[in-house]
């Protein structure tokens, strides 16, 4: 059992910066868990605190059944792979991989064998006598992983494992990493600032900001139902559209258009909310559509098999050429792109709109959206 439990974990630096603010977190045994957030959010500090390289100012860390809060890093039975891999330059690949075993006082023959075995598993068999300086970036990463694996720790900690690789290699390494973790079944926590990477790799993600965890959930949860506007804006290759809305007569007024309030949400007249919907969940049409937002196309970005279209929202009764207030983006399949200057309507798909009050999500969990449902305004498959 190597679940990780954090209780009220706090870290305050001598200059007063609260890097971790009373965090509670449970990571299940065998889970591939991501710590995601912008720089400065505390994710690396959290990783290092779990490793023991930083001492917590308050709270507790449990690995498995043990309370490891007071234990030094070498006794927590964790292995950490650093962003720069930290392969000892003066040792061969074999000695590098065998190093943890050397510390554990395994005899020379046994640890050489173990190192060779681990290296083979990762396809490094031919490189055993090379020095790190003679390896490519991808090979170095695998050696670092082999070294972490060789001592069979309870937990893997990976600090930005893919950021040192160039873009093409990164995708390969991503798949490799996911497979490896699945095969080994070891609890793995990794830090990244790349939300696509987190979504692709992790079983569950913790999105952090300013030393706090803003949401914990599966990639689907975090993508479909971000718990607050911060997560909504952070997750997704194209950011979620977040538009000011006002409640009037039981309906939402979004940039002049009246939209129904999503089911199950209690609202009071006159209050100001934030209306959120992803560009991928909007349908663009050149025909007027009820329940849709009207706007003027400003920018069309071609992204290959689809385009990202930005519209400045203009209610129907606004004079033409009026200064735009809000803008939204919508994903349009290829062949259907409008031209800049055209007027268009974007219609949200049912069950995909979210409402935020003071930044927090208020739309309750809906019944799974029926994918085939479309508005009557002629949007096609």
């Amino acid at each position, binding site marked *: 059992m190597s679940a990780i439990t954090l209780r009220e974990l706090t870290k305050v630096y001598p200059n007063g910066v609260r890097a971790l603010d009373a965090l509670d977190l449970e990571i299940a045994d065998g889970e591939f868990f991501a710590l995601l957030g912008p720089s400065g959010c505390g994710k690396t500090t959290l990783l290092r605190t779990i490793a023991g390289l930083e001492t917590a100012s308050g709270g507790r860390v449990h690995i498995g059944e043990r309370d490891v809060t007071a234990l030094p*890093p070498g*006794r927590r039975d*964790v*292995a950490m792979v650093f962003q720069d891999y*930290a392969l*000892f330059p003066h040792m061969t690949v074999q000695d590098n991989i065998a190093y*943890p075993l050397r*510390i554990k006082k395994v005899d020379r023959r046994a640890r050489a064998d173990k190192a060779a075995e681990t290296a083979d598993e990762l396809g490094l068999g031919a490189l055993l006598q090379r020095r790190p300086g003679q390896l490519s970036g991808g090979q170095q990463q695998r050696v670092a992983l082999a070294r972490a694996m060789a*001592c069979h720790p309870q937990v893997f900690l990976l600090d930005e494992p893919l950021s040192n690789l160039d873009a093409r290699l990164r995708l390969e390494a991503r798949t490799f990493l996911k497979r490896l973790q699945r095969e080994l079944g070891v609890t793995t926590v990794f830090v990244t600032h790349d939300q696509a990477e987190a979504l692709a790799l992790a079983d569950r993600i913790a999105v952090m900001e300013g030393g706090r965890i803003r949401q914990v959930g599966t990639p689907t949860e975090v993508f479909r139902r971000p718990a607050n506007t911060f997560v909504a804006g952070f997750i997704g290759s194209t950011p979620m559209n977040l538009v000011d809305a006002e409640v009037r007569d039981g309906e939402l007024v979004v940039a002049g258009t009246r939209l129904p309030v999503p089911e199950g949400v209690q609202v009071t007249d006159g209050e100001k909310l934030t209306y959120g919907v992803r560009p991928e969940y909007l349908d663009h049409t050149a025909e007027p559509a009820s329940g849709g937002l009207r706007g003027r196309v400003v920018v069309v970005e071609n992204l290959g098999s689809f385009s990202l279209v930005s519209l400045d929202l203009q209610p129907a009764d606004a004079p033409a050429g009026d200064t735009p207030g809000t803008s939204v983006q919508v994903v349009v399949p290829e062949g259907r792109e409008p031209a800049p200057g055209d007027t268009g309507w974007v219609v949200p798909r049912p069950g995909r709109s979210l409402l935020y009050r003071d930044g927090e999500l208020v739309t309750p969990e809906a019944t799974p959206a029926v994918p085939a449902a479309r508005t009557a305004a002629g949007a096609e498959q």
Partner: protein
Amino acid sequence: MSTATRTAPARTDRPAPGTAPVAVRHVLSRIGRYVFLCAVLGFFALPLLWLATAPFDETPTITASLPRFTLDNFRALLDNPYALSSLLNSVYLAAGTAVLVVTFAALAAYALSRVRVPGRDALLYGLLLLSSIVTGTATMVPLFELAFRLNLIDSRLGVILILSGGLLPAAIFILKDFMDATPTSYEESARVFGASPLQIMRHIVVPVVRPGLATVGVWAVANVWGNFLVPFLLLRGPEKAPAAVIMYTLYTEGGQADLRLLSTFSLLYSLPVALMFVFVSSRYGFRFHGGIKR
């Protein structure tokens, strides 16, 4: 096209104004440069001529002259009871100081680089300033007194300790720079694997900063090898004296200096540092920049 060729010959008749003087100036400056460099070469080579010729001359004189070649002069070294032993003394002093300086400076530099000791920066710059201002010459009186009180007069250990004290601030400064440039992830990685601080130092830190340690070691040896004042002050009698002091006594002792001895001894005494320098500069590209980053 034809018009172009017609004007071309006309252009070469008279050189454009201003180009001739520039070309001449250019040539003159080049000649001037070469002359200057030859003069410089001559200036720096001249005193060395004697060192290159006299040891191999059957009848060496003060004047540098073409030698009547022989290797017999080196026997004179063996006749003098103190010549060779002084070289050994020099080796002892240089090696001892280098070991002491490298070890202590490495420990101190590592601690200063990795651990936030209060007042660290002020300490470093203060030490550096101190070591430039407080030289052996300026404090020869109290050093002598101090050595006397600590019973270190006429002790080679005393010389080693005093020389180390003078070299340490700069050595710490240089090594700290090296340590700072070494990423901490190596040490942290080893720490997570369970290595103790001592193991980390042995397995990781020392091998990685070896070039820095070598630099400081070589620099210390070069400094001590030629140091005259401290052994001259502190050591009595020629048995313990290093080559620097013996060299001096050889030509200030009364009577006619034995040029055979002097010349061969000078050569033998100079050779190790010269060779070491050549070796280090070819291996590590030792272009010492006087502190400037290239």
